[in-house]
């Protein structure tokens, strides 16, 4: 009986082995994933680093997301324009001024385009800029701290879309308005659009040493919709190219009325010439009111200043510096190839991609081959500036990036594909479907002089069935594509934060080595810093109470506070005394109608709290910091507002503790 059983088991085992073996064979001969080496190309071993940083704008999230590429791992979300209760951005006393504008405190924006700072036309890893679309602003983020350091508001603009693209040495960051409005803004009938509405193109000067932004000058141009832009480089250095649509100057039902003409324009701006004109006193200083907000990482605090004037120039002030290049049809992208010789227009309603030659533009200007003018701005002839057209590029060509081998990659929104074509010959060499409705795409350095042409990121507006469903609302997504070979290969899908509108990429080693690990406590210049636990204290000034608190593993000091009264304004100034990388502490108190604090080593952050009724209010550290994290707590006693309980507090430190 036992023997028979053994035989049966052996037979069963054989059958199972056969099935497994059979299956294995079957799998190895078909199925694209098994044949492809995609898993190896995107797999980054635990503990190993990605090759590139990808900075993907958050669109309507208002933030900037940082991904590792090729893995698609989310490394960080940098708060920019939206309040972020997770770390107190826009809630703390120190960061509230960053979101100040001429419209008051604005807790959100639509952040569309990210742009790395450059040196000699190549990303240098110092800063990244990002635009605020809705309440026109440009932000500068430090790639040392991965924090927003500066936000400047753009006056006379009403939708900062063609922004924040920079010149090859980041002398200027531009901000072209999507919506034209009256300059200065005033109460007029909307039907007076053609007469009263203008488009402002703003050039923001960037200080080379510390990146500080200030508006250099503003061009007040015809009332079109300015969409995207890119700076010239190499031979075309000194020029900027802005795409614009709605040259019909429609103000209602733009969907139809702004698509009447066969061609709109790319505006060529000789910014170097205008810079000289401004230096020689051209233009007028117009009264304005716009916020300039700066964060100081020694004071750990931001300031907001209202600037009251801006230098504006009309087309008549800058003759010979502005030209319109006709471009079919409602162009989106205005993209300059790595050599700086070609300007590619992405006409989202066009059936071709026009490629303009800078050389031909210069000679057409020299020969005055114009086809009339608009407000004194000469219109060049399409054919005289054209190098050639890419035929059949896919439906809805939007944006073009470049590799380092002479190829261009254009996203086609309507047909959901990426089209690869040769810049010199304009012939299409490859196509790849993407899922779905690709907007912008990104190759690290792909809009610079030196693309790192290994990967392409497709940023898609619609995700639909690509991931497990999560109800009606789905994350949008990005797709990573291998462009190292002749044929494009899809490697990876990953969901993103907000709308992955536009991105920049850079080799990790240009950024990682400069990453700040701690803020030195000796350099902390915050006016309410507590640099030693012996200075922890509570001070009453009328109905305002300042708590000078320290945090270190695993206690808050002071940890028992009495003498606070209902309706006092209590400011908790919490200094993290740690000097070790990645040891933040958090802080909150029961009933806090504000965000928490998340305090980095050596930093001081302040949260305002107004207790409404007497009682005992616990507070604690919210960031799991140590084995005794759960012990990191304290109590605040709140008394009736007419009581006379004196301020007292307890601390670990007593004078006799040091001798």
């Amino acid at each position, binding site marked *: 009986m036992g023997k028979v059983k053994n035989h049966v088991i052996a037979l069963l085992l054989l059958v199972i082995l056969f099935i497994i073996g059979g299956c294995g064979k079957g799998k190895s001969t078909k199925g694209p994933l098994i044949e492809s080496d995609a898993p190896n190309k995107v797999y980054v071993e635990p503990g190993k680093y990605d090759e590139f940083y990808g900075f993907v704008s958050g669109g309507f999230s208002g933030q900037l997301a940082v991904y590792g590429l090729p893995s698609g791992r989310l490394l960080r979300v940098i708060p920019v324009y939206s309040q972020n209760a997770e770390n107190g951005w826009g809630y703390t006393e120190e960061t509230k001024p960053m979101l100040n504008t001429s419209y008051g405190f604005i807790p959100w924006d639509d952040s569309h385009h990210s742009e790395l700072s450059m040196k000699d036309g190549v990303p240098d890893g110092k800063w990244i800029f990002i635009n605020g679309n809705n309440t026109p602003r440009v932000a500068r983020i430090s790639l040392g701290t991965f924090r927003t350091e500066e936000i400047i508001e753009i006056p006379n603009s009403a939708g900062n879309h063609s922004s924040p693209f920079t010149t090859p040495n980041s002398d200027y960051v531009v901000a072209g308005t999507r919506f034209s409005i009256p300059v200065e803004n005033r109460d007029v009938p909307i039907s007076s659009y053609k007469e009263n509405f203008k488009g402002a193109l703003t050039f923001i000067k960037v200080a080379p040493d510390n990146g500080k932004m200030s508006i250099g000058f503003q061009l007040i141009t015809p009332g079109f919709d300015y969409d995207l832009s890119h700076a010239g480089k190499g031979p075309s250095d000194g020029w900027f190219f802005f795409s614009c649509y709605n040259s019909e100057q429609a103000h209602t039902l733009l969907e139809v009325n702004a698509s009447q003409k066969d061609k709109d324009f790319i505006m060529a701006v000789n910014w170097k010439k205008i810079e000289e004109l401004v230096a020689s006193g051209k233009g007028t200083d117009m009264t304005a009111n716009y916020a300039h907000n700066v964060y100081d990482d020694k004071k750990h605090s931001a300031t907001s200043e209202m600037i009251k004037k801006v230098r504006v120039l009309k087309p008549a002030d800058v003759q010979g510096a502005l030209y319109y290049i006709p471009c079919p049809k409602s162009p989106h992208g205005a993209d300059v190839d790595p050599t700086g010789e070609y300007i590619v227009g992405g006409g989202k309603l066009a059936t071709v991609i026009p490629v303009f030659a800078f050389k031909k533009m210069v000679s057409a200007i020299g020969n005055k081959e114009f086809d009339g003018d608009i407000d004194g701005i000469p219109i060049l002839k399409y054919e005289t500036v054209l190098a050639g057209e890419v035929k059949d590029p896919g439906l809805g060509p939007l944006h073009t990036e470049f590799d380092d081998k002479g190829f261009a990659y254009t996203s086609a929104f309507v047909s959901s594909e990426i089209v690869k074509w040769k810049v010199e010959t304009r012939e299409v060499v490859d196509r790849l479907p993407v899922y779905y409705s690709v907007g912008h795409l990104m190759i690290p350095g792909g809009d610079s002089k030196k693309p790192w042409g290994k990967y392409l990121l497709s940023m898609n507006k619609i995700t639909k069935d690509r991931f497990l469903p999560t109800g009606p609302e789905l994350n949008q997504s990005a797709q990573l594509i291998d462009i190292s070979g002749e044929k494009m290969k899809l490697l990876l899908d990953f969901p993103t934060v907000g709308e992955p509108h536009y991105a920049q990429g850079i080799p990790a080693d240009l950024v990682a080595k400069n990453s700040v690990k*701690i803020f*030195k*406590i000796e350099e902390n210049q915050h006016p309410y810093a507590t*640099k*030693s*636990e*012996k200075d922890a204290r509570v001070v009453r000034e009328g109905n305002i109470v300042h708590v000078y608190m*320290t945090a*270190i*593993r*695993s*206690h808050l*000091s002071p940890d028992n506070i009495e003498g606070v009264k209902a309706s006092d304004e209590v400011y908790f100034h919490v200094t993290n*005394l*740690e*000097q*070790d990388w990645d*040891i933040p502490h958090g802080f909150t108190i029961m009933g806090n109608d504000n965000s928490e604090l998340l305090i980095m080593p050596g930093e001081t952050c302040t949260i305002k709290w107004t207790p409404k009724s007497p009682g005992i209010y616990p507070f604690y550290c919210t960031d799991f910091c*140590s*084995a*005794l994290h759960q012990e990191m707590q304290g109590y605040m006693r709140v008394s009736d507002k007419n009581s006379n309980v004196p301020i007292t507090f307890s601390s*670990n*430190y007593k004078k006799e*503790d*040091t*001798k």
Partner: protein
Amino acid sequence: MNKILSVFPVFSGLLILISFAVTGCTDNTQELGIGPVKKVELSANIDAALSEKGKGIFENKCIQCHKLDDKLVGPPLHGVTKRRKPEWIMNMILNPEQMTKENLEAKKLFGQYLTQMTFQNVTEQDARAILEYLRSVDSK
């Protein structure tokens, strides 16, 4: 079997040699600690100025966790200069993470207090000053 027995003395000899070599190496790092400080020259008298400087640093960077006579986050420090070599103390200040992993005494303390001692961004000169302050405390 015989073969195995016959090589046994060779093996055990080797083992003894290896363990000797290991303990020979680690003895030093157990006593002096692991870190940048290999040798500290101490004068018989306390350098008052250096000790005062050390006290200042101690009050800013150490008192959050260390008292002299009571347990807090870390152990009380009264008598530490009698218990440990000066090199060990300085290495503990300058290289606490490796110390609590690889130095037996430091590891034992970590097990007892359960909070990783943190490097407080001090220089070797700062650590020397803190040592002088602790020596002055112990000399009273």
